């Protein structure tokens, strides 16, 4: 396997990248689609097959550009450690128009209509160094508003309200735009129950739309003080992770604005931003399922059919110590990445980050398991992961 991300750029990708076929049966968690990746034994029964029974619509993943990604780099985007808002606006326009081959107005029409309620899923973890930047969000909002989306139809969201605030996503900073956390978490751990003893955010989650993992319960999960502590952070603690009602009932489209960083030997970018950000009770999933959750959550129709665009904010990057910030490993990358296909996008970014880790002398564990979830998505028809089938355009 070639691990040079530049190699992708040098190749001529003339192969037809059509809609991937959905594997109807015999789906196994963590099964990669090709080459030397091997089959992992199924470990946990989930409700992935229920997701796959729902017919796709015209907006379903991988969207109109499977296997296509655009990287826009501009040295002026980060100068003296400050973001250049004007340059970032230009980069967003270049990225979107290059991805779609259409004008900004036509691109808007490709993904949205003016009545859409559009959620901007940001990553607020690691401010001010390695979260989704406010400048990128500004640029995306400007595009949407310029094409007729009312400000009140745009909602910046994440799972945790306090993290949004910490990262500067406030009503004061974004007047007229909705700001919503799926849940409250009281960091002190004392004030998260209502007068009836329920979590104050319990009604923010949709009991009818869930990701199920048999036998994996949020009780006595290692690293959590006790079940109370777990409930504070996760609202529920059974075998079900409920999607936020914001996602299931309010939003009609989603733009995924991830940050550019690692998590261990893998990355915490497009797939993890939504895969662990759109639902509750996820602490239980890390150990037994980790990345495959990202794939299976994206297969849920509420994500698969609403997520229309992914922009990964790589103005700054972090190649080690993620997903929270670790300043020792943050560097100016000065790039934004665009795709409708989050899995192709993550494959590009994963390979780039591996190259960066090597360049910086970090010991790199390149075991294929860290990208198995991308090949699993390819097998499910959600995206393209095979490097030879991905077309990266650099601007």
């Amino acid at each position, binding site marked *: 396997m070639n691990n040079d991300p530049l190699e992708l750029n040098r190749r001529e990708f003339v192969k037809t990248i059509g809609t991937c076929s959905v594997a109807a049966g015999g789906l196994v968690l963590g099964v990669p689609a090709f080459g030397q990746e091997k089959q992992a034994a199924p470990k946990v029964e989930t409700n992935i097959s229920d997701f796959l029974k729902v017919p796709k619509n015209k907006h379903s993943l991988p969207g109109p550009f499977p296997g296509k990604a655009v990287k826009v780099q501009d040295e002026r985007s980060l100068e003296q450690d400050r973001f250049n808002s004007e340059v970032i606006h230009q980069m967003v326009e270049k990225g979107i128009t290059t991805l779609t081959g259409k004008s900004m107005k036509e691109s808007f029409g490709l993904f949205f209509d003016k009545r859409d309620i559009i959620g901007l899923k940001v990553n607020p*973890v690691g401010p001010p160094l390695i979260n989704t930047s406010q400048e990128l969000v500004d640029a995306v909002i400007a595009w949407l508003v310029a094409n007729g989306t009312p400000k009140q139809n745009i909602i910046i969201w994440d799972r945790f309200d306090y993290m949004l605030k910490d990262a500067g996503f406030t009503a004061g900073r974004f007047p007229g735009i909705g700001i919503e956390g799926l849940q409250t978490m009281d960091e002190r751990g004392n004030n998260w129950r209502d007068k009836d003893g329920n979590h104050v955010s319990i009604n923010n989650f949709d009991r009818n739309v869930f990701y199920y993992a048999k036998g994996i319960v949020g009780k006595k999960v290692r690293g959590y*003080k006790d079940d109370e502590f777990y409930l504070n952070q996760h609202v529920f603690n059974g075998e079900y992770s409920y999607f936020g009602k914001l996602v299931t009932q309010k939003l009609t489209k989603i733009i995924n604005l991830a940050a550019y960083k690692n998590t261990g030997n893998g990355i915490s970018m497009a797939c993890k931003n939504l895969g662990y950000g759109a639902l509750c009770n996820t602490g239980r999933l890390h150990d037994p399922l980790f990345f495959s959750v990202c794939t299976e959550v994206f297969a849920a129709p509420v994500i698969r059919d609403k997520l229309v665009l992914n922009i990964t904010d790589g103005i700054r990057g972090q190649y080690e*110590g993620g997903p929270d910030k670790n300043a020792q490993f943050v560097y100016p990358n000065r790039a934004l990445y665009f795709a409708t296909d989050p899995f192709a996008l993550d494959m590009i970014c994963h390979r780039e980050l591996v190259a960066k880790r090597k360049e910086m002398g970090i010991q790199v564990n390149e075991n294929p398991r860290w990208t198995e979830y991308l090949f699993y998505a390819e097998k499910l028809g959600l995206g393209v992961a095979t490097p030879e089938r991905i077309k990266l355009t650099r601007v």
Partner: protein
Amino acid sequence: MTTILAILLAFFGKPLFQRPAAPDTALLPPDGFLQSWKRAENPRVFTSSDLYGYIDGGAEIYLEFGFEQLTVQSYRPVPQSAADEFKAEIYRMADPVAAAGMYLMNCGKERPDPSFAERHTLNEFQLLFKRNRYYVVINNSEGNQKLRAAMLEFGRYIAARLPAEASIKLGEVLPSRGLDRTSIRFIRGPYALQAIYTLGEGDILELDRRVTAVSGRYDDAGIKYSLILVDYPTEEAAQKAFLNVQTHLDRYLNVQEKTSRRLVFKDYKNEYGVIDVASRRLTIQLHLADRPTAGVRQQCRKMRNTAI
């Protein structure tokens, strides 16, 4: 070698979690420090049971090395200027090796300031240092370059109140010839091992957070490889761990040779790995371009040892 083994033995059998003592608030600078810094809130204290609530997605490695308590205190300048804020994080680990293990995991390429005595690295956003069984991080949230000197003063204040530095000679087990000294890492379980290589699921080396392995990268006259050495408390423990690796070797590693004392495999990059067990020691070589011969381990033993 006897000395080295004695040092290693000192770490065996240590209780994994000691009873938490009082919070480390006495180590923190008071209000008015450097004339202008004031505590922004009450200090927060986290133990092994709630660390996950503070470190989003990263607590496991602290617990694996052996973690007792984290004390967090934020400071703001008075009068308040812009968004400047310092946050001191004092990690009290189980022992000096645990503190060193965390520091080595997080320090990256060290950029020391000549005026700071402890082993550390500094940039505009963070000062990281270790002393004895403490690992300390001073965060400068806005990366304000003008506050670099103040960050160092915060670090000095805390360092002066910590126990004297302990000598850690664990790295001496690694042969010195060709060793990239910046690559030395300690390993007490799957999370630290995973950062280097995947031999299999879970605690494949059966370190159980008690046995400390040491690893390093080598470039010996153009021959590049990584080395992990593990000294177990007993021969039986070493043999048991070796059998565990043999039995549960990662599915991406293909066995080339398998005996009661040696396992040779080829990995997903067509590089070779070899695991030898002898007496209480596992010797693991990784990323070898050529299939190893029987003499490699003996060669390693003949090399001069090194100190960290």
